[in-house]
């Protein structure tokens, strides 16, 4: 594996929009001229059930289709999953873990041993409720990913959203999402 390969694992519950967000990250990678892949771990899809999805981003064409074993970015859309699933399983050294929670990284470390990872938190659900009007943490998480990994700039993410959401949603919804991304980008805590 080359050093330019970013492997992302998403932990969420069905209905939180993890697959949509994984697709958005893939589309952002295309716009950067990078190679990408995004896929869920398949199983019966029920609203509220724990799900896992993966995204790979690379400078080189991607020819491995197996699930990500050693992610360097781990995104947890529902903080209650931390108690039931080992979200840092297989994490590569210095992996970035971003948890959607109003707690600080230090709060979480008190109760959970995450080893050597760089733990960050962002209140994605709260931000989504305040900006979009619904608890949809997926778009703010993409903002947090941009900030934490440096893979994309804030404006890039917002431009992409304007284009892809602009066709489908009202201006109010689009603006809510843009604001959600901006706040998440700025409010990530490490």
């Amino acid at each position, binding site marked *: 594996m080359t050093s330019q390969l970013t492997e992302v694992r998403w932990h969420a519950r069905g209905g939180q929009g993890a697959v949509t967000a994984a697709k958005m990250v893939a589309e952002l990678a295309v716009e950067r001229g990078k190679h990408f892949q*995004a896929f869920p771990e398949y199983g019966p899809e029920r609203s509220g059930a724990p799900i896992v999805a993966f995204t790979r981003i690379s400078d080189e064409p991607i020819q491995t289709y197996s699930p990500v074993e050693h992610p360097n970015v781990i995104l947890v859309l529902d903080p209650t999953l931390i108690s039931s699933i080992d979200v840092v399983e297989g994490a590569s050294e210095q992996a970035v873990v971003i948890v959607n929670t109003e707690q600080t990284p230090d709060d979480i470390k008190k109760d959970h041993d995450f080893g050597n990872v760089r733990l960050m938190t962002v209140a994605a659900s709260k931000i989504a409720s305040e900006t979009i009007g619904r608890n949809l943490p997926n778009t703010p998480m993409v903002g947090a990913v941009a900030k934490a990994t440096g893979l994309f700039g804030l404006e890039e993410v917002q431009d992409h959203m304007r284009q892809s959401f602009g066709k489908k949603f009202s201006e109010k919804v689009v603006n809510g999402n843009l604001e959600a991304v901006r706040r998440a980008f700025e409010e990530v805590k490490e």
Partner: protein
Amino acid sequence: MAQTEAKTLAITGNGAVSLAMKQVDPDVVAAYPITPQTDVVQNFSQYVANGDVKAEFVTAESEHSAMSACIGSAAAGARTMTATSSAGYALMVEVCFVAASMRLPIIMTTVNRALSGPINIHCDHSDSMLGRDSGWLQIYNEDAQEAYDATVMSFPIAEHKDVRLPLMNMYDGFIISGAIGPLKPLSAEQVQEFIGQAPDYPRLLDAKNPVTMGPFDGLHGWYFEQKIAQNIAMDNALDVIQDTYDRFYELTGRRYEHLMKYRMDDAEIAVVVANSAAGNARAIVDKLRNEGIKAGVIKLRTFRPFPVKQYAEALADVKVVGVMDRADSFGAPGGPLYMEVLTSLYQEGQCAKAVNFIYGLGGRDVFPQNIEDVYRRLDAIAKGEQDAPRERVYVNTKGM
């Protein structure tokens, strides 16, 4: 070469094939719209609802009926497509034999998924391998781009006057069908120009030139000779497929062959593998080559007709070949691909050592380490450190 600089889309494997179907805009799509159907057909139904295509879209009450509708449609001279997967394909198979014997160039996508039981919806190649004797052309594809390209290339192959056979395109269920990957599509105009008009052929519902199709053959009819004719058409298809691949290369710069060789020139050990696992194999070959191990990969594309001579040539100087099957043939000497490859070698008088690896049944993951283990074993056999096992080697099993 008029290479096109198309915009790259982020799209699922199924989305890519639906897009190709939209650009082809066949006369008729007849399909079963419920599980185990994939969203290839769902996406297409949206194109129909949005008025993006002119195709007559027929939803049938079973896969058996869907293929029967395709047969009627194609016999009437309509360019006909459908899609299926898994147990849905199994239900179709009876009438698939009829489609082939009536020499109807129906184009079908079969998303490779397991057959029950235990009940399992995940990827393996049991479904399409079930139909390997049905008389359909079979092309296997690694990723969304290949599946898209194959869909476009299907028409000049299947409709060619020397072939006139139905054709099915495969790619891995979920791993490719549901994964979002890159696709460089052609324009609809390019697709239309490439596939052209379907050549004229005797058809039903032509009152001025009446023909009989698919009748009762009687006790002393021509059934036997009809079967021989199907085999001749299969033989003819080998050249027609390659000619079509070559013409596609002129258009897109994307090169296809019956089998895709990777670092095979001086290879001493090689793996033959189909669909998405081929990517993993190439990555492992690069790693082993850095260690000085002369390893290569042959990726299956054309399975029906089976390109015997091409396999024999590609493996002529290989000491040990590992054939990886994602389907099994219970009680047979090995999996379907293994038996084809070994027969090809035998027919050409070659006797490389061969090992059959069965992997990925029912969606069992195949990790890079699993493929590396396969190559390490082949290397040990090539070096005389191990004997080649005659029995199947199962990859990444539990509790065995």
